[in-house]
């Protein structure tokens, strides 16, 4: 009896040590830029989470915890010892980031947590939290689902675990590690207190991310660059001359993307990718997870630069196509979706504020941004492949007019896409600045795609008033290109 008790305590102590040497508190000071007043930042706030110490002495957190940070600090669980940290690598799509303490010796003595194996639905694990005194709080969690789903800053979807866990309210809970047998098996990124369900980034995603970081050059997760639809409908199968079973129908191809450069075309039926057969719903049989959506097959299994092999049926004939995985369909876009950490580009001229369109600007209009934001901007962003296929042609728009005598009559205009200035086509904000700088006197004729079409300012008068307007509105810099 006594012996048993003693043994149990010893084991507990050992586990507690393990925990003490494996997690730290992460405190991030966040201050996003104000997209509507791009020369300034919004009110700062703090986010606190738990970071996982990795065997190499670095700390893993979710990207969401440190997005738009002004600084990040680490704090040991059992003491108030602190250390500033830098973000070494960050991927907003995969929602992962690696932090490096500024003082290398800060994490001395921390053993860190190794990555554990992939989990299956029905497996159990623990979600770790920290008490105020630094003691570990282990919450029993059950893996409900394993499947491809949306991440906070990614449209296409990555593999994720659906987790059921009852988490008590504690500080530092913005992101939490998912642990099994003292190994890191995931990072909890979203949690709903009402349903007591959350989602976690699976260990293999973390592994894939860390490998990419380790080689010194972070390349990210590739994308295919296609839209596709399921092929269950026998009439549709017949129409596109699909074989008896399997395969998905390509409905749009980005010519810059992995699939586009490999030669895939709209109307093709993709039968297999990298030797993995696809069923009619776009699932393949993953050796780790079983039936899994194509997203994991084309985004997580391959690396940027690795070979992509497609078996497609085109007009009833099967053919093999080969290419190289990359991110061009995502990275080379006229309107970037993600814009964290960076100051929005803008240019103020005669009170007219021009900005370069990003997804972040549109999101600033709130949850109903598709209804509230200027409809032309919503259209260009949402149907970018149709409306702005050239990634080099950015969308420069008049976001607002700061009223001044010089812009009388123009003050209610906003959300207008700039087409050209004095006849020169505008392709980026930087180029707009060049064009404007080249006009010393005479008219500045701004042409927009929508009503009222044209606005005119006098170049020399604009020049004379710039400083006055800058001061009146307290703008430190009139341009950020």
């Amino acid at each position, binding site marked *: 009896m006594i012996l048993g008790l003693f043994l149990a305590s010893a084991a507990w102590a050992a586990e507690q040590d393990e925990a003490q040497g494996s997690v730290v508190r992460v405190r991030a000071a966040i201050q996003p830029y104000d997209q509507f007043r791009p020369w300034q930042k919004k009110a700062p706030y703090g986010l606190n989470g738990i970071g996982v110490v990795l065997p190499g002495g670095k700390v893993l957190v979710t990207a969401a915890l440190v997005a738009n940070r002004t600084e990040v600090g680490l704090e040991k669980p059992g003491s108030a010892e602190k250390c500033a940290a830098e973000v070494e690598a960050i991927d907003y799509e995969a929602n992962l980031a690696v932090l490096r303490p500024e003082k290398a010796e800060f994490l001395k003595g921390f053993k860190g947590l190794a990555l554990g194996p992939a989990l299956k639905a029905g497996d159990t694990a623990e979600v770790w939290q920290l008490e105020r005194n630094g003691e570990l709080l282990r919450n029993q969690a059950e893996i409900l689902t394993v499947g491809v789903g949306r991440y906070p800053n990614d449209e296409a979807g990555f593999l994720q675990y659906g987790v059921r866990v009852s988490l008590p309210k504690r500080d530092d809970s913005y992101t939490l590690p998912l642990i099994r047998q003292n190994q890191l098996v995931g990072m909890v990124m979203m949690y709903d207190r009402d349903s007591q369900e959350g989602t976690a980034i699976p260990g293999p995603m973390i592994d894939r991310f860390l490998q990419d970081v380790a080689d010194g050059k972070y390349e990210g997760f590739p994308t295919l660059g296609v*839209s596709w*639809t399921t092929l*269950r*409908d026998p*009439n*549709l199968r*017949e*129409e596109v001359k699909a074989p008896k079973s399997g395969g998905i*129908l390509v*409905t*749009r191809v980005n010519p810059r993307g992995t699939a586009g450069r490999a030669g895939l075309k709209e109307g093709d039926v993709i039968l297999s990718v990298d030797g993995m057969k696809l069923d009619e719903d776009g699932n393949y049989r993953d050796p780790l997870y079983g039936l899994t959506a194509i997203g994991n097959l084309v985004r997580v299994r391959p690396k940027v630069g690795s070979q992509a092999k497609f078996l497609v049926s085109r007009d009833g004939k099967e053919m093999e196509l080969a290419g190289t995985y990359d991110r061009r369909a995502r990275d080379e876009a006229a309107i970037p979706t993600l814009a964290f950490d960076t100051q929005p580009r803008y240019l103020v001229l005669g009170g007219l504020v021009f900005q370069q369109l990003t997804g972040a600007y549109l999101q600033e209009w709130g949850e109903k941004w*598709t*209804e509230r934001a200027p*409809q032309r901007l*919503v*259209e260009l962003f*949402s*149907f970018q492949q*149709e409306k702005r296929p050239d990634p080099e042609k950015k969308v420069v728009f008049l976001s607002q007019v700061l009223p001044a005598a*010089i*812009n*009388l*009559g*123009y003050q209610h205009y906003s959300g207008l896409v700039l087409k050209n200035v004095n006849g020169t086509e505008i392709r980026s904000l930087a180029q707009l600045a060049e064009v404007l700088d080249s006009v010393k006197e005479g*008219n500045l*004729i701004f042409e927009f795609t*929508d*009503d*009222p*079409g*044209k*606005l*005119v*300012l*006098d170049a020399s*008068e604009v020049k004379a008033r710039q400083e006055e307007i800058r001061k009146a509105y307290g703008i430190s810099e009139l341009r950020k290109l």
Partner: protein
Amino acid sequence: MKCWFLAILGAVISGCAKDGQLHEAKKNTVMVEVTSQVWDYRLPWNPGTVSSGRGAGFIVAGKRIITNAHVISGARNITVQREADPRRYAAKVKYVAHDCDLAMLEVEDPAFFKGTTHLDLGGIPELESVVSVYGFPIGGDRLSVTRGVVSRIDYNAYTHSGRESHLAIQIDAAINPGNSGGPVMQSDKVVGVAFQGFRGDVAQNVGYMIPTPVIRRFLKDVEDGRYDYYVDIAVRWMPLENPAMRKYLGLANDGRGVVVTDVFSEGSSDGYLNKGDVLLSIDGHPIESDGSVRLEGKPVQLEEIVERKFSREEVRLEVWRGGQTETVNVPLKPADMFSMYEILYEPPPRYVLYGGLVFQPLTANLMAVLAGSADLRLKQKYTMFATDQMYRETPEPVILSAVLPDPSNVYLRGLAGQIVREINGRKIRTLADVEPALAANGERSVIRFEGDSRPAVLKREEVDRSTPRIMAQYGISEASRTEVGSRRLAKGSYSQEEKK
């Protein structure tokens, strides 16, 4: 019974209403009771739900009764009754103008007019002057009188049509359902028709009446036996306040003129005005740089000049173009490019049913029922249809509005709400294109949509088998209703044309 509530009406404190006015109003104000049917665009083959309501009207010269369009829209039965006569008489709609919410009724039985005279139309009442409102609002069955002062005279949305704005007069009287269509009087004359207001939780003591210029325009328009709709100059313009802009256009800084920023293709000004034209005067009225003109000593928007004109009449514009002044006469017509935004009342909804797929033209009524489920592409198609002049390519976008579940279309249900681009290789520009395109198929029909959606593929033999089954299952008597040809006919003048 419901009392029509679009309109509200106020009456006031008058010191100037004479005994004679009440007497005349009593004789010539009528209660209008209507049983109407409202089409259901979700189930376009159904005749719709029946409801009844009450409004007011008044007798004008020529034994004609004026009321609001919204009182009688969708009417299947109308009776009118006067204060002095307990009998109810059958009435019919002679003309209806949904764009300005007015209608004219006729009563066949001459007995109805016994003891009536008629009310004359007056002018625009002064601000702060007192008016009296007559009608049959909620709270009793006999004639009610309220009073108010004229609070504001301005352009305002006419909510019945969903898109029109015309001159309206705001009065501060209590407003109640059932006043709609009733006369608002001052000094023995009608100065307006009570027609709309706010719900009590939005604003109090704010009611609106249709002023006499709008009523007179309606009466004049129908003199030729049909209602032709408001005309529109169909341009967009921008005020010319900015000195640099004025200098660029070669204009003196004299506070005159507005610049045309867009000319709607197929509109009145198409071929007459260009982008960049500066409008200096309209029918001899100088245009200020904010777009206003002086009319009877009062500043009004330049459109008011156009508002008072009729189809095929001209408006004379003095235009600054290429450094000189030119005179341009623009023949006027209605702005059909905006007709998509008008709420339709009389015409039965048009549709084509094919294998459980329901095709409907994009209308304000359809958008109202799809509102919650419409995707961004459809919403933008609707909101940007006129401004982007999409009507040039596709005069009437066709929507796959619903997929009626049947074993034969189990894979197609997710496609509801898509915009039809082509059927069997034929471009779909209006609903009339749908049936011929579907008939052009071999054994399979392929329907393609805008954007990157998958196509819908249907086999002819399956559709032939499923159609009778679906029609029986969903109680659909006709597989299509496409007969209403012209879009204009489908709108304001429809009911009148029908009766001929």
